[in-house]
């Protein structure tokens, strides 16, 4: 069931503002990805009644289920912060986590003459936690290519203790910020956006001025989760982190960003979860005990600009470290190091997404559980 008729390749929102991708690269019809043996119901859901195994649709129809998989995702909620969706919204205040925001930002950047560009994270958790950093790196690269980098001041503002928060990543990557001349404002807990003065202000009274603010608003689960009474205060469904079963309803499973598990809200996580979820639902149907198999595995390319990228591979217990991937000692991809090969991987990933991942095909040589081989843990 989906209320939308189009599927968006969300990682593409990062590239749209910089004219690297066009809208048609990232939007396709949902219809073409649903197997012929599956019924696709298109329409908005009023609410789920998990105690009665029912889904109530807006048009009044009712669907009854034996097993429900909730995959309603996460989205931005700029209204959570005073003034964020104010008079400057899509004039000098933008998000790039929606198609509309990303496209408005592209149009703004195309003829911007320069000034203070502030890239900002409102609060964690957010989808694709590295995307704002990638945005700052790509902005550096974009303005360099336009021969106007000296006219743009880039500041990265985070509620965390720095742009990097894990020891190994900080050690390996901190130099990138100096090389790219990106200023860091850390421990910034935004209280409001001042649309008149064009600044963001935090609870401690610190103010940061901007000419363009690119913010990642608070992320929340879908309102349908709140209407159904199935979520926490950010509308995420409490979920067992290793089995992916709802903590409250045995026949409800949660896939991807809709859950509250402490894994990254990333596409690769949803992909690895899907493999384990399939096995567990089959066990559930047979009345067998579920396997606590999901380890929080995530695998992400990180654009660093100028035709290079990083690759990280990590899980619940293992932070990203240097090494080789997917073949230990061989690669060809290098972990936690900038390379052109990683950038090619990131660009190739769009093709893999549309042609392999969405069809549920297993990615060769990459397992759902993280491998420790070929990695430098100590």
């Amino acid at each position: 069931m989906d209320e939308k008729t189009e599927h968006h390749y969300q990682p593409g929102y990062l590239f749209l503002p910089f004219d690297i991708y066009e809208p048609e690269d990232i939007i396709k019809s949902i219809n073409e990805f649903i197997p012929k043996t599956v019924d696709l119901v298109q329409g908005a859901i009023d609410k789920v009644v998990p105690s009665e195994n029912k889904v109530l649709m807006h048009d009044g129809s009712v669907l009854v289920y034996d097993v429900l998989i909730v995959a309603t995702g996460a989205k931005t909620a700029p209204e959570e912060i005073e003034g964020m969706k104010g008079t400057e919204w899509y004039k000098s205040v933008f998000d790039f986590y929606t198609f509309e925001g990303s496209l408005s930002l592209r149009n703004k950047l195309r003829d911007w003459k320069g000034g203070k560009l502030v890239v900002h994270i409102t609060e964690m958790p957010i989808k694709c936690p590295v995307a704002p950093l990638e945005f700052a790196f790509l902005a550096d690269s974009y303005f360099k290519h336009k021969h106007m980098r000296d006219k743009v001041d880039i500041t990265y503002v985070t509620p965390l203790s720095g742009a990097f928060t894990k020891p190994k990543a900080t050690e390996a990557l901190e130099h990138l910020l100096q090389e790219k001349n990106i200023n860091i404002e850390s421990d910034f807990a935004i209280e409001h956006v001042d649309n008149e003065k064009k600044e963001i202000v935090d609870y401690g009274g610190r103010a940061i001025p901007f000419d363009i603010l690119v913010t990642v608003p608070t992320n929340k689960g879908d309102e349908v989760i709140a209407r159904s009474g199935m979520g926490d205060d950010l509308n995420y469904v409490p979920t067992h982190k290793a089995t992916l079963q709802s903590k409250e309803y045995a026949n409800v499973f949660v896939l991807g960003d809709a859950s509250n598990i402490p894994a990254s809200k990333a596409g690769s996580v949803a992909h690895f979860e899907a493999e384990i979820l399939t096995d567990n639902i089959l066990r559930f149907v047979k009345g067998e005990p579920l396997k606590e198999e999901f380890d929080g595995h995530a695998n992400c390319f990180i654009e660093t600009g100028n035709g290079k990228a990083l690759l990280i591979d990590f899980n619940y217990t293992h932070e990203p470290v240097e090494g080789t991937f997917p073949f230990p000692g061989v690669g060809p991809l290098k972990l936690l190091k900038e390379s052109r090969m990683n950038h090619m991987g990131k660009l190739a990933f769009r093709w893999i997404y549309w042609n392999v991942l969405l069809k549920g095909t297993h990615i060769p040589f990459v397992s759902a559980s993280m491998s420790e081989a070929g990695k430098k843990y100590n």
Partner: protein
Amino acid sequence: MEKTIAGKSIAVNEEGYLTDFKQWDKSVGEALAAEAEINLTPRHWDVLSYLQTEHKNEVPLSIRKIGKSGVVDIKEFYQLFPKAPLKTATKIAGIPKPASCI
């Protein structure tokens, strides 16, 4: 690495955060607070114990969430743990600071 805190040998990371919460007790909390030049009052302890419970339940911590918790409002949280309250309070509570994936 190991660090002597309140006369005990405690496992900490590069930034001095405890890596094993089981080694935390109130005397460790008091010693870490003294390092941050904070004198712990009953209000501090309310906040620290709330943070420890949230951490145990694997709830991601954010300042706005703490403000909505009913335990402390954001203004008081800044008064209790000045400058970077979440970074300081988590260290004293013996739990990891809020982090991203890299």
